């Protein structure tokens, strides 16, 4: 059986599945229950200055009949006292020495305050610190959370305060609410952080009540922007994780966060460079028990693929992420429709007609209409295969072009040498 254990910048964990700093890690009793069910690690709900929370706090994005494609919150840091949290962190670590226990911190942006807090954490026995420079709501208005993480200089300064005194590895949690996340990641790395965790939540308003015109989630008829997470943000997170993993100026361990609900999601994050993954929304939806399939599925997949340990596949997709200019313009796909599998919904037809390249016609065949690809018009965009409700009915087939691979960058280089160099790829008539 595969070995699922990881070493995250010196933090040992029996598996890569950690609970993200959030309501599921609010107390010792919760985290201990999660460890009993198999979670490898947990990041304690952010310890901070005293706060007062509002009611309500959460909003959901439902799609069709699927609940909670996305979740947002306007909850602040822990509502429990510093002393209670410290006592429970100590107890939990003592009871679960093999699990990774990290503590999230968000402190007033003063050197003394930060260093005092970090020193106190050194005494709890926790395995690592996570600096919350990410929350996009509430605390940022008081100069904390994303207010720090949006400015590389602030990130560097505070991270330096922490690494000066920290006796355990330090992670910086990054906000996605920036133009280029690698700038902040580089600042954290430059300040001596041992790792980064991303993404924190995305600034968001979940909707509007059309009777009261209150933004959602609503507090006494009013609302504010909150932090958005859940399956809907996964692609954003994958992109940002891969950007950090590709950047040699970052070069530190990555804990991936953002819509992870299954072992496949976790493997995708790890393939793009994450050593551990953190989960919140899926646990808020279904409970800690989801980790059972995450462990089981990952283990089975690794056995099937012949990976003995996680480092065998961590980062394996990173070299495949390129700039657009390096993609092969001489690679050609076209769609093929298996008319035996076609059920006649004609969604591919209307999608192609209204939303793509007018390349699927309806023709009579076998007494009913079947969609047929117009191969001269098809640009291989995937849309028809994406909308088709039948697995395997529309497949994208490679058509050999007989031309050797050439990217835009290479083409520009050739053009510089010879202005009459024939362009690669295919001309689109429309």
């Amino acid at each position, binding site marked *: 059986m595969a070995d699922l254990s990881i070493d995250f910048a010196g933090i040992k964990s029996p598996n890569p599945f950690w609970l993200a700093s959030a309501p599921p890690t609010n107390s010792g009793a919760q985290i201990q229950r999660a460890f009993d069910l198999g979670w490898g690690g947990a990041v304690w709900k952010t310890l901070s200055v005293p706060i007062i929370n509002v009611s309500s706090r959460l909003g959901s994005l439902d799609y*069709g009949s699927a609940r909670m494609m996305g979740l947002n919150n306007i909850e602040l840091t822990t509502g429990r006292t510093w002393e209670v949290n410290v006592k429970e962190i100590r107890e939990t670590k003592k009871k679960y020495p093999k699990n990774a226990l990290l503590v999230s911190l968000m402190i007033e942006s003063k050197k003394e305050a930060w260093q005092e807090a970090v020193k106190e954490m050194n005494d709890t026995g926790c395995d690592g610190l996570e600096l919350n420079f990410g929350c996009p709501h509430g605390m940022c208005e008081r100069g904390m959370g994303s207010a720090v993480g949006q400015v590389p200089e602030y990130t560097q300064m505070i991270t330096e305060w922490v690494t000066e005194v920290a006796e355990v590895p330090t992670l910086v949690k990054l906000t996605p609410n920036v133009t280029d996340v690698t700038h902040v990641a580089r600042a954290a790395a430059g300040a001596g952080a041992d790792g980064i965790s991303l993404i924190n939540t995305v600034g968001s308003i979940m909707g509007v009540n059309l009777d009261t015109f209150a933004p959602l989630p609503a507090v006494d008829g009013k609302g504010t922007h909150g932090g958005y997470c859940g399956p809907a943000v996964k692609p954003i997170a994958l992109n940002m994780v891969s950007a950090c993993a590709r950047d040699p100026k970052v070069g530190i361990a990555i804990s991936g966060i953002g819509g992870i609900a299954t072992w496949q999601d976790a493997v995708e994050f790890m393939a793009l460079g994450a050593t551990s993954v953190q989960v919140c929304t899926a646990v808020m939806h279904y409970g800690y028990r989801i980790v059972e399939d995450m462990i089981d599925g990952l283990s089975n997949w690794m056995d099937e693929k012949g990976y003995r340990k996680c480092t065998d596949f961590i980062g394996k997709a990173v070299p495949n992420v390129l700039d657009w200019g390096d993609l092969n313009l001489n690679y050609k796909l076209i769609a093929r429709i298996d008319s035996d599998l076609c059920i006649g*919904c004609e969604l591919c*037809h209307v999608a192609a007609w209204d939303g793509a390249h007018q390349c699927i016609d309806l023709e009579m065949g076998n007494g009913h209409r079947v969609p047929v690809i117009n191969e001269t018009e098809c640009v291989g965009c995937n849309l028809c295969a994406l909308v088709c409700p*039948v697995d395997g009915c529309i497949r994208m087939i490679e058509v050999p072009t007989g031309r050797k691979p050439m990217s835009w960058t290479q083409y520009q280089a050739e053009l510089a040498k010879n202005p009459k160099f024939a362009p690669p790829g295919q001309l689109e008539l429309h």
Partner: protein
Amino acid sequence: MAANSGDKLSMIKNLARKLSDVEYDKNFADINPPFASHNSKLEANRCLFCFDAPCTRACPTHIDIPAFIKKIASGNMRGSARDILNANILGMSCGRVCPVDSLCEGACVFNDRDTEPIQIGRLQRFSIDWFYQNWAETKKMFKPGKSNGKKVACIGGGPASLSCAFYLAQLGYAVTIYDKNDKPGGLNTYGIARYKMSADEALKEVKLAELVGVKFKQNCEIGKDIKVENLTRDSDAIFLGIGLGQTEDLGIPGEDLPGVVDAITFIDELKHKKLRDVTVGRRVAVIGAGNTSVDAATQAKRLGAEMVMVLYRRSEAEMPAYNYEYEIAKKDGCVYYFLTAPKRIIGKGGVEGIECVRMKLGPPDRSGRPAPEPIPGSEFVLECDMVIKSLGQKKQREFIQKVLGLKTDNRGCIAVDDVTLQTSNPKFYAGGDCVNGGREVVNAVAHGKRAAWAIHKKLTGRDVDLEGLWKNESIRRVANKAEFQYA
């Protein structure tokens, strides 16, 4: 509708025991109960929103089904109901009584994916139930068209006339429905099994026609209470939705015995009496195996008959009843005697039994189905107290030819132009059972709508596509010109 048969039925020898109110309520409860709101959304969200959807093509009235389902999913109930009613004024009846397995749901692409089709009928019902439950508001959605000074008479109060009248009234015609019955609605009011739809519900759809200005003259029979010449003189066009005649006779001895009743009369009583007061025998034989036969057989059983026997001279394969109807009858415990024909009804002063003969299937007859032939010497007697005749309704060939002066087809139905539904008298149009020989409510609605379309075009020269009505038809014609066919 039909004459009260109470006198004849009071002679039934062995009456079924009366049930408790709880049992009646249970037996006649809605057979296909409405969706709870959240379930309707779950189901609506399952719809793929097919382009030029097969369900819409399969619906004789071409309701834009994916459109109304998407509107249920989005919470646009008003738009959903309008999409249905613009295509089919009897959206409520059709949502409940349509043979959806053979129409929209049978065409759903999910059938080809080995997945349950979308429950279109129940979703339609959900939308239209909402419409009638919010009548105080929703009635503002429909109003009479601006008067164009033209008059149309619709004969018969059933689905075909209601449909024709509803659309013409919205286009500005003064429309009157002349109907021989007490209550409007035709077979929707009188002839639908009680566990599918009550008479009160059928009358809500009549209200919708009244809302757009349709006038109703009840207890008014054409050729008797009102002369055809007067109608012709006073109207710019006449639509005939006169349905069919009485139930066909068995043509066997004993048919006049007390205890022999026709299915339509029996169902009519069921709809308008307290269930406790409907007479039913302890052992009931139903002759014929169409959909009306199922309604009669199942309801006899549900009223308390101990034994219900359905006799059919052909085999199960030729049976005209829809499969899902047959399933209801089987679940209710009705016993089918296939290849069994009645020879005579036996009894002194009332039905005591029915003598039958076994049949075998011979070569195809004119209908293309194998002709049943009696097996000599195979006679046997089934003991029963009541016989319900359900052989289909008679065509009104004589009435159509002599009173209305119109041509009939070879079945005895009114001969019409396939597209316009115009009869041999250019002023007369016809639709529904009197044209198709007896089909579904939805076929009658489609006829009424198409006739309205043709009448409007003839009288004004304008195509209704331009009026914004019949949205689906116009879209379909554009989308699919070559294939477009009238249902």
